[in-house]
């Protein structure tokens, strides 16, 4: 038993030393977090790597919660999140010796997407809530075709889910027939291929589906900027402390303020900050 432990410990120590020796290189930026912010992060990464060929930027899209966790564990340099960091997360970060600094990158509206064949054009927030709470089960109850509603939600670890929960559900719980998928792209795909479906997606994910107006307001970058569209939220990047000026990390995190960054944000379908 002892030998085993020693060998194992030895192996691990060796691996760990090798790991830490290599981990310190400043030429990589690890981005982890929200799939909503994913397109922005990937565009930034691409742009940044083209400008700075020596730097490797990796992007994981594993959900906002995962991003926060990675930052707290010092497992990533930038956590992308589609919701603000929770107090519990901030506290955990401080306990781990990490100071999360918030950068608001862009604004995003959560659009309600239905299949293109669906005649429904407008829903109120209350109707949406009832659909997702399972109180309204057929489109006919909303004046549409006699067809069951297939309500599709983001998985519970996503920031989009939590925003939807606060902005729409208002303390009500999701109905048990709601289907869960892992990403905006997946919701869009499901809605595109399912006549009875309804889903909620970020503004950048509305190609190929029909977005309904909410309380009479269409989800567009303009209405989001004007704060007319009711279901909108900011998107964030978090770093550990304010990155030192001139470092790759500072340049990367600051991209959203540059004209190129704003152009990329707009091109990926989000709303750049003025």
């Amino acid at each position, binding site marked *: 038993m002892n030998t085993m432990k020693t060998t194992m410990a030895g192996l691990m120590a060796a691996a760990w030393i090798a790991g830490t020796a290599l981990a310190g290189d400043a030429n990589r930026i690890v981005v982890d977090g929200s799939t909503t912010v994913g397109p922005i992060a990937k565009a930034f990464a691409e742009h940044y790597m083209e400008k700075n060929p020596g730097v490797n930027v990796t992007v994981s899209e594993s959900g906002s919660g995962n991003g926060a966790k990675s930052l707290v564990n010092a497992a990533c340099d930038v956590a992308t999140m589609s919701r603000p960091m929770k107090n*519990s997360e901030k506290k955990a970060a401080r306990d781990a010796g990490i100071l999360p600094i918030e950068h608001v990158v862009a604004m995003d509206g959560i659009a309600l997407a239905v299949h293109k064949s669906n005649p429904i054009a407008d829903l109120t927030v209350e109707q949406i809530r009832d659909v997702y709470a399972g109180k309204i089960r057929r489109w006919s109850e909303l004046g549409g075709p006699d067809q069951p509603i297939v309500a599709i939600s983001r998985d519970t670890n996503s920031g989009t889910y939590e925003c939807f*929960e606060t902005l729409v559900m208002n303390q009500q719980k999701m109905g048990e027939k709601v289907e869960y998928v892992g990403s905006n792209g997946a919701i869009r795909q499901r809605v595109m*291929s399912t006549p009875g479906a309804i889903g909620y997606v970020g503004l950048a994910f509305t190609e190929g589906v029909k977005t309904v107006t909410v309380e009479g307001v269409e989800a567009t970058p303009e209405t989001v900027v004007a704060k007319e569209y009711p279901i909108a939220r900011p998107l964030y990047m978090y770093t550990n402390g304010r990155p030192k000026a001139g470092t790759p990390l500072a340049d990367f995190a600051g991209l959203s303020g540059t004209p190129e960054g704003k152009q990329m944000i707009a091109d990926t379908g989000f709303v750049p900050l003025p």
Partner: protein
Amino acid sequence: MDGSARERGSLRLSRGTRRRQRLAAAAGQLFLLAVTSLSALAVFAIFYFIARDAIPFFRLEGFKEFFTSTRWYPSAEQAEFGALAIFVGSGLVTLGAALVAVPLGIAAAVCLSDVLPFSARQVVKPVIEMLAAIPSVAYGFFALVVLAPLLQRSGGPVLAAAAWIVGAPVAALLAFILSDLLADRFPERAQRRARWAFLILLGSGAVAALSVAGRALSGLEIPSGTNALNVSLILGIMALPTVVSVSEDALQAAGRELREGSYALGATRAETLLRTILPAARSGILAAVILGIMRAIGETMVVWMASGNASQIPEPWYNLLEPVRTLTATIAGDMGEADHVTGSARYHVLFAMALCLLTVSFLCNLGSEWVLRRTRRKAGG
């Protein structure tokens, strides 16, 4: 122990080569033992580390809600962790997979071991191996991108066609047997005619029943193609190779003498297999079924991509056309929630699920091992 033995060996080096050699051999053997134990003890490490993160959940939330409630709201302010629907979902798709894999698998195994000639077997074996080799994510991709839209677009007709393909041979067979059994009650002279009469009667009845069922099925509308049926089919195909190869081994192990004895008594091949071989290979086949089921329970990517992930118990419970959520998909999809570091119930509940999975697979494994060992002992004695 190992290290100290080696040290001692080196100290006594001068005292004679024989002794040194023996010690070296012992040390080497100890090293081998250590490595072997290490790989075996990994299981305990897995149990330990999963349980270590699972127990806090039960301490925080208790057992009752987790196992009895269907309300799964892990992220709400007032979080609820009722996983019953998720257990049912896992069970349902596994049951569905077993319904596909077990009859098909056993039939194929029988065919492989007793019907097909050697040369045909050489062709079929690679097919099975390929089915086993295709990665689960490729199956999942197929389920999501090909099968789900197909079910949604023309699920009814597809199901009706499937009902005909499976139902027609079964019905024909049943009609033959029944008409024969019924005709046996008639006097000898009328038997032939009676058999034909019954056959036509039963056959047309079966065709009518099938076409009614087919029409009902083809009128079916499937609102969502990512559902338990889709996943069950794919998981069934994935479990097939395991069921086939393990039950084929069991059938082969039943031995030549049994078969020859039965043939000598005038039994046909079907009768030999049904009355003699299958009962003899019963426990081996049981083990095959258990192993196949384990494969289906533990599969992640297919269910994550194509089961719909709705945490509900279908209405009625056997309604395979409803989306369901399984343990594995919940772990994959929900993992990495924020409060990981602070140790929230949200994080630990996933480990609790993993612990349940682990326990089930452990029990299944013990079961199949026990069954197999019993067979071996029987075969040996």
